[in-house]
């Protein structure tokens, strides 16, 4: 008995040792029995705080019955950094899923490795989807060496942010809406020192921000772009024919830095701005800490997002204003580019002959059946159609299962794969509502439309331009913030010395590579 036990132990150990590395390589390409194709999909969840669709979600069965596809889905992490790490780790092990969402910068690293398949041949196989999702700009977005390596679906709506100001604070202080950068400074000062909320405490600041840096909205990030826009230095890149290159080399950038330094030195910007993460920033404006900010339409005006502010300040009112004009008449909310969610197909999936099945799946998703099922769920269970044919949450038997309810929203997790910012989606996503406390009529869609009328700077394709290496990026961002915090003295002489150092360290090469790419891809305005 004991001998048998020892033998078993040895066998189990060997099996475990052999099996674990095998399992760690992930499941091999699977073609299930009876011709069913297994497609593994890593998707970007529509609501990262909610769970995935349940295992018995009707969509899985429909996809199996109609397309003979066994769809295995995995939600990517919510933060872009974590998404990148997950995808790159899988790529390093040559274990990418069949179809996966990926940022363009990461895709650019996977293409030279031969890990993703070209998708040019798929557009013709998906006529409905291609008509709604993939225009010429979209096809060019994920193009490398003349081939398209990703299906670039419409992403976040463009120009969906705006410069907002507390109208009630302006009224309390008898101030007009600022139109120039100097008027803006006067208002910021008043919001900071003249007790605009009339609570008798020095607990408010003029401007609120945090560092939200992206590839085309370099330091200090998008929240301060209206300030830099006043000096014609918005965005990482200037994409005009006459001045193409990195904005940091422009005179206006230095002027914007001086203005920002003034904001910091005079204490008119929320002093926590460099410590805030996104959630802290959003909690802060809802607590009435500052009176001017750049915010996204839904983050500001969607029902659940506006509710805490409405609760705290029933008489509070934000309005969207034009970006302030600078000394030379420049003004801009910031740069904008076409936003995409890129889905790529692994080379492994292509070799396994799955590309056509993936096209079939995506085309079905773009059909009316797929669009409504993935977008809102099942009619009569998760949504009903109003008189205009817009899906609404009202009228379903159990509100918990409506597409906005806690049990219903999980079935719409894949909606970003079918949405293309069409009218039906926008009306459904941003319904007009009455706020709970102040009884105001609000609509994030109206807010969006108004934000889109303001002055923005076209920078289409700026997110596809070369990015600096990690050391240069750090040098760039760290030095600029040090000029603002005072670790480096901001004056013209120091600035020029720093620019020279930046050039030598690789800034000039980065600039030149960017300009060459703009010219090569006809991106100059």
């Amino acid at each position, binding site marked *: 008995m004991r001998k048998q036990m020892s033998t078993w132990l040895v066998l189990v150990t060997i099996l475990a040792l052999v099996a674990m590395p095998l399992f760690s390589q992930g499941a091999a390409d699977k073609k299930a029995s009876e011709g069913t194709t297994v497609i593994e999909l890593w998707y970007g969840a529509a609501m990262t705080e909610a769970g995935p669709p349940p295992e018995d979600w009707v969509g899985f069965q429909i996809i199996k019955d109609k397309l003979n596809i066994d769809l295995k889905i995995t939600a990517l992490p919510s933060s872009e950094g974590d998404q990148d*790490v997950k995808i790159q780790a899988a*790529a390093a092990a040559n274990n990418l899923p069949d179809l996966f969402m990926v940022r363009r910068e990461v895709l650019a690293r996977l293409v030279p490795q031969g890990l993703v398949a070209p998708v040019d041949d798929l557009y013709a196989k998906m006529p409905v989807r291609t008509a709604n999702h993939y225009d010429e700009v979209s096809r060019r977005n994920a193009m490398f060496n003349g081939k398209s390596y990703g299906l670039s679906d419409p992403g976040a709506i463009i120009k969906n942010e705006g410069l907002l100001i507390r109208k009630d604070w302006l009224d309390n202080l008898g101030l007009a809406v600022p139109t120039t950068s100097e008027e803006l400074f006067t208002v910021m000062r008043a919001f900071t020192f003249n007790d605009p909320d009339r609570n008798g405490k020095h607990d408010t600041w003029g401007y609120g921000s945090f560092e939200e840096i992206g590839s085309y909205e370099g330091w200090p990030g998008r929240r301060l772009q209206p300030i830099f826009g006043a000096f014609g230095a918005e965005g990482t890149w200037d994409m005009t024919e006459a001045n193409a290159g990195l904005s940091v080399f422009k005179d206006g950038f230095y002027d914007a830095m001086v203005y920002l330094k003034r904001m910091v030195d005079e204490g008119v910007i929320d002093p*926590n701005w*460099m410590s805030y*993460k996104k959630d802290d920033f959003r909690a802060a404006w809802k607590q009435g*800490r500052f009176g001017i900010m750049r915010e996204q339409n839904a983050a500001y005006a969607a029902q659940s997002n506006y509710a805490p502010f409405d609760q705290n300040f029933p008489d509070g009112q934000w309005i969207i204003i034009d970006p302030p004009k600078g000394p030379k008449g420049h003004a801009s909310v910031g740069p904008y580019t076409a936003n995409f969610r890129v889905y790529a197909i692994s080379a492994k999936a292509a070799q396994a002959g799955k590309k056509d099945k993936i096209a079939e799946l995506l085309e079905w998703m773009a059909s009316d059946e797929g669009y409504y099922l993935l977008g809102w769920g099942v009619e009569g269970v998760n949504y009903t159609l109003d008189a205009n044919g817009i899906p609404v949450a009202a009228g379903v038997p159990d509100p918990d299962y409506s597409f906005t309810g806690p049990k219903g929203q999980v079935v719409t997790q894949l909606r970003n794969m079918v949405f293309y910012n069409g009218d039906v989606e926008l009306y459904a996503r941003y319904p007009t509502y009455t706020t709970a406390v102040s009884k105001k009529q609000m609509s994030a869609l109206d807010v969006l439309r108004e934000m889109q009328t303001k002055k923005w700077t076209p920078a289409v394709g700026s997110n596809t331009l070369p990015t600096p290496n990690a*050391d240069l990026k750090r*040098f760039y961002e760290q030095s600029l913030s040090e000029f603002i915090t005072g670790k480096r003295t901001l004056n013209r002489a120091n600035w020029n010395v720093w620019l020279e150092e930046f050039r030598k360290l690789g800034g000039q090469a980065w600039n030149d590579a960017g300009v060459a790419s703009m010219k090569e891809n006809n991106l100059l305005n």
Partner: protein
Amino acid sequence: MVTKSRKSELSREIRRHASVYVLLIIPLVYYITFKYVPIFNGQIAFKDYMALDGVLGSRWIGLEHFRTFIQSYYFAELLRNTLMYSFGKLIFSLPLAILLAITIYESKRRRLSRTVQTLAYLPHFLSWVIMYGILLALLAPGDGVVNDIIKAFGGKPRAFLTSVETFPWIVIFSDAWKEMGWSAIIFIAALMGIDPALFEAAMVEGATSWQRVRYITLPSIRPVIVIVVLLRLGTILDAGFNQIFMLYSTPVLSVADIIDTWVYRQGLLEFQFGLATAVGLFKGAIGMLLILFTNRIVKRLGGSSLY
């Protein structure tokens, strides 16, 4: 004949302690799978790793990745910051943990000491995301508790989290606060092993509390302290990625960027796994050398050692 008898003796021993061997299986599988098998993949530190070519098929480039790391613009600063935080945490956190362990052990009020012990453990279970929220609430220049106090006394608020002067101290002390209770466990366990007769004899001889700590407690737990220090030296180039990644921001990068945050940006985000592995090997080699060196010194000085 002798070999056969030894073999049967070994198998008899294994059978006798079968349950212990069963327990050994799981950690054994873990270590082989996650610690020894990856050593084979460590060769990508010397290769231009291409996922499709695999570990063996990728092109050999020798010490190129090591050169890239050592010649990187911020290498000296990264090394300085990493060592600063590692030694800083060792110097501040370890004595605090020992002090806490002795205090808990010496306390006559059992309920109080248990409560303190539990409260001291708690921060260990909080993630650095939550710790960051707490630190922001305490230290924010706008409305942080500490700055409120400074303002109440007529002082000028400070941006503790974005100032290069204060940031290193926040890293070291917040780590001490978070890990002190957890680190104290091993010392409390060591204290439990001291023969109570030693304390009784010392009390009969009229030794004060401080004398008991100095001449009995500390010498008794010295072997454990030495082992803990030696093990910490083995990971001296791990300065706490999670903590610093959560706390740092652009104004403090000059004192916050450590080897691991650089590897994250340059290696993982830029898809340079060979480079990331090379830095991992570099860290491991330094750690091993430090352990060997320190262990030999400690041994020569006649103290306890790791092996």
